[in-house]
């Protein structure tokens, strides 16, 4: 034996798909795609985000919540009852998976905020964000996995196949799916630390490291976000919420903030563009994401893939018919779409933005 690999060196792996006509596909596709990249992770975290999975409750916020203790559940449900009309409450259905020995209690709630609880001048979405921040930061052992409408995050400690089987992911049908297999480097592998990271209907899966985490965190805290999940990727979900929902930037501009052009390249632009980019970089200096990343950003109307400015992590995109696929490896796309019409590697910092039609 000349080759004795003591361990496999890897990084995280991500994959995503969108049907721009809004037609649903079941979760077996994303699980198959992600499972091909199992060796990019190390079994300490995998997860999926899906859009369009709760059509019968599409007007309700779907809260997926993880509880370490029964007491955390009681505390959260008390706040829920006081502030929301609860249409339905249930355990998230799971299957027995041999390798998953311990798991937190996983509940979901379909709710509407009580109108009288929303302060004048505030709005429903801010109200939901405040609830998520309160649960994550104040209630011990309770973490909100997702809080959007007609979407949900399913994640935990395990590899892609195990987590997919555990959540019976193939029983859901969605028009956007993302998936992630994790190789934690700087922070613990725990259920709340698996990707995707979400807020309202924003979801992020990420390969890399956000070296600017400290700057981004302090910046977000000024706007009331509380960063509790012990993982750098959390900042990206909240930055999209701040930039797109609260500040009204379009998604392309928000991407320009996160992966801003280098000053030397801004200096080469003509006057108008130079001024625009200079203003944007100056205004949002603390929202710049530094460090290596490829990430997929899902929301109810589309899917975005983007790399850091010097492409320190891989990202490949492909299309076939109404479908667009993006993944860390081309083979992960071909595993579920053997003959794509177009395959390309997006350039550094240049987002691939796919919007749902209609």
């Amino acid at each position: 034996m000349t080759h004795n690999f003591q361990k496999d060196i890897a990084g995280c792996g991500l994959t995503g798909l969108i049907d721009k006509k809004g037609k649903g596909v079941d979760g077996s596709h994303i699980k198959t795609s992600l499972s091909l990249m199992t060796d990019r992770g190390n079994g300490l975290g995998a997860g999926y985000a899906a859009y369009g999975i709760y059509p019968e409750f599409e007007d309700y916020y779907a809260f997926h919540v993880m509880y370490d203790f029964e007491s955390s559940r009681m505390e959260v449900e008390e706040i829920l009852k006081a502030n929301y009309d609860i249409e339905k409450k249930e355990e998230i259905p799971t299957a027995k998976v041999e390798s998953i020995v311990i798991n937190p209690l996983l509940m979901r709630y379909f709710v509407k905020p009580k109108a009288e609880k929303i302060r004048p001048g505030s709005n429903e979405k801010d109200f939901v964000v405040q609830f998520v921040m309160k649960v994550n930061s104040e209630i011990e052992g309770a973490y909100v996995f997702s809080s959007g409408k007609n979407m949900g995050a399913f994640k935990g400690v395990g590899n892609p196949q195990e987590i997919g089987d555990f959540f019976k992911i193939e029983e859901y049908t969605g028009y956007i799916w993302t998936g992630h297999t994790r190789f934690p480097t700087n922070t613990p592998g725990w259920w709340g630390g698996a990707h995707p990271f979400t807020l309202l209907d924003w979801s992020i899966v990420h390969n890399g490291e956000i070296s600017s985490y400290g700057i981004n965190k302090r910046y977000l805290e000024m706007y009331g976000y509380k960063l509790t999940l012990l993982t750098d990727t959390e900042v990206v979900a909240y930055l999209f919420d701040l930039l797109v929902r609260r500040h009204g930037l379009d998604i392309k501009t928000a991407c320009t903030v996160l992966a801003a052009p280098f000053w030397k390249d801004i200096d080469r632009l003509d006057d108008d563009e130079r001024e625009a980019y200079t203003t944007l970089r100056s205004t949002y200096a603390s929202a710049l994401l530094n460090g290596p990343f490829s990430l997929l950003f899902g929301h109810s109307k589309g899917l975005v893939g983007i790399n850091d400015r010097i492409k320190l992590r891989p990202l490949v995109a492909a299309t076939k018919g109404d479908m667009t696929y993006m993944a860390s490896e081309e083979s992960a796309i071909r595993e579920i779409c053997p003959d794509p019409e177009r395959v390309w590697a997006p350039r550094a910092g240049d987002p691939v933005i796919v919007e749902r039609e209609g």
Partner: protein
Amino acid sequence: MYNIDAKGMHFKELNEQVRAAVKDGEDEITLQNVNGQYYIGVGIREKPTITIEGVPGNDLAAFMDGPTLRVKSNAQDNIANTMNSGKVIIEGHAGDVLGYGMRGGKLHIKGNVGYRVGIHMKGYKKQIPTIVAGGTAGDFFGEYMAGGVLILLGLEGTDVKTNPIAGDYLGTGMHGGKIFVRGEIDPTRIGAEVGILDLDENDHKLLKKCLEDFCADFDLSVDDIMKEPFKKLEPITDRPYGNLYAY
């Protein structure tokens, strides 16, 4: 002729089968239904020809020392890392970090290549690692290059503004070897220690030899390719940072 059906197979099993076949003296091996298996061809020191049908996974031909690999489709990242001899032929596009620290042998890609191709390539006497790409390259092409030959052809057409033949930081930190580029180079996108030069007679000979081999692999015409002018990038100082810590 020996076939292995790689469908659904983990890379460990596939590579064990390949090594066993090579050990048994098979010199023509075809891997069918490959999709994403890592490390194909890694560390093999015999000289079989291995044909790969499907997209092979990362680290193809790393530390390879002899075989010829022909990939019938696109390929992914980290191909020919520290490769010592042999050849890799890719009929489609290839990804990032190709030929990192490559020290011998050839890597021929018909299409485009990604970021960080040919970083830290090195050469010595008859060991001249060579990478030829028929399309364009991303940023950091030939960064810290110490030896060997990199050739970019832009056969599908390029535009210095919208579709440049090479990305930013071309040859940054380069201190040995040669880069030949067929098409316009943006002088603001190259490393400070690199000069854009015309080819001399020896360069022409070297380029032609490399292109004859490349064209034979893909059934292309050397004369057609050489109708367009080439430029050469070379380090123009011997020790650009010699005084960095000595002021």
